[in-house]
């Protein structure tokens, strides 16, 4: 089952055994904690800056990583413009790839 990778090896079974060991110790630590959680009380409610959370609140898929995306905004906007959806651009970039391939092959 071992996969030799040239400089070492990868064995999922060994990894799983180690992961099980780590999980076991994690479980031990968890058992040492306080037992004040009660299901069905206010402790179940989501915390939203101290305000009352609206019913059925769900952070939709597009809102995750908002800050990360904001930081990368210029790059991502450029990429979005690059994928213009215009068929002429698709063809242009294909021709560019062919030209680059031809250049690389011819010049060597």
């Amino acid at each position, binding site marked *: 089952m071992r996969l030799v990778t040239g400089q070492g090896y990868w064995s999922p079974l060994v990894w799983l055994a180690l992961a099980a060991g780590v999980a076991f110790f994690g479980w031990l630590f968890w058992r040492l904690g306080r037992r004040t959680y009660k299901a069905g009380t206010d402790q179940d409610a989501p915390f939203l800056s101290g305000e009352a959370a609206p019913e059925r609140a769900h952070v939709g898929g597009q809102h995750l990583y908002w800050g990360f995306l904001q930081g990368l905004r210029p790059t991502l906007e450029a990429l*979005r413009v690059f*994928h*213009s*959806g*215009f*068929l*002429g651009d698709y*063809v*242009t970039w294909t*021709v560019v790839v062919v030209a680059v391939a031809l250049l690389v092959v011819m010049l060597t």
Partner: protein
Amino acid sequence: MIGNLPFVVCMILIGLGLWTLLSRRNLIKLAIGITLIECGVNLFLVTLGYVERGVAPIYTYTQPGVTMVLPTPQALTLTSIVIGMATTALMLAFAVVIYRHRGTLDARKIRELKG
């Protein structure tokens, strides 16, 4: 020199087709551009199979000593023409469907799928 003329024509056809694809916006014209490239490539294939004073490779009718033509390029061209017809028909069919839904054939306005 004159023998190379068909090859020059092929390259001109392929170049024209590419230029059509890059500069035109009408979907029908884009299909025409692709057909032009196809014609250029087909012409190239047929030209490759040309042998001066060659005859058709039918053993029953030829005198001994004449050059016979290998029929492969013709067969390739025929196959390629059939494939080209299928792709062109399919593309035009999609153009019709697009026109029915959007009422336009301008490729710059048909970009619902982007980003």
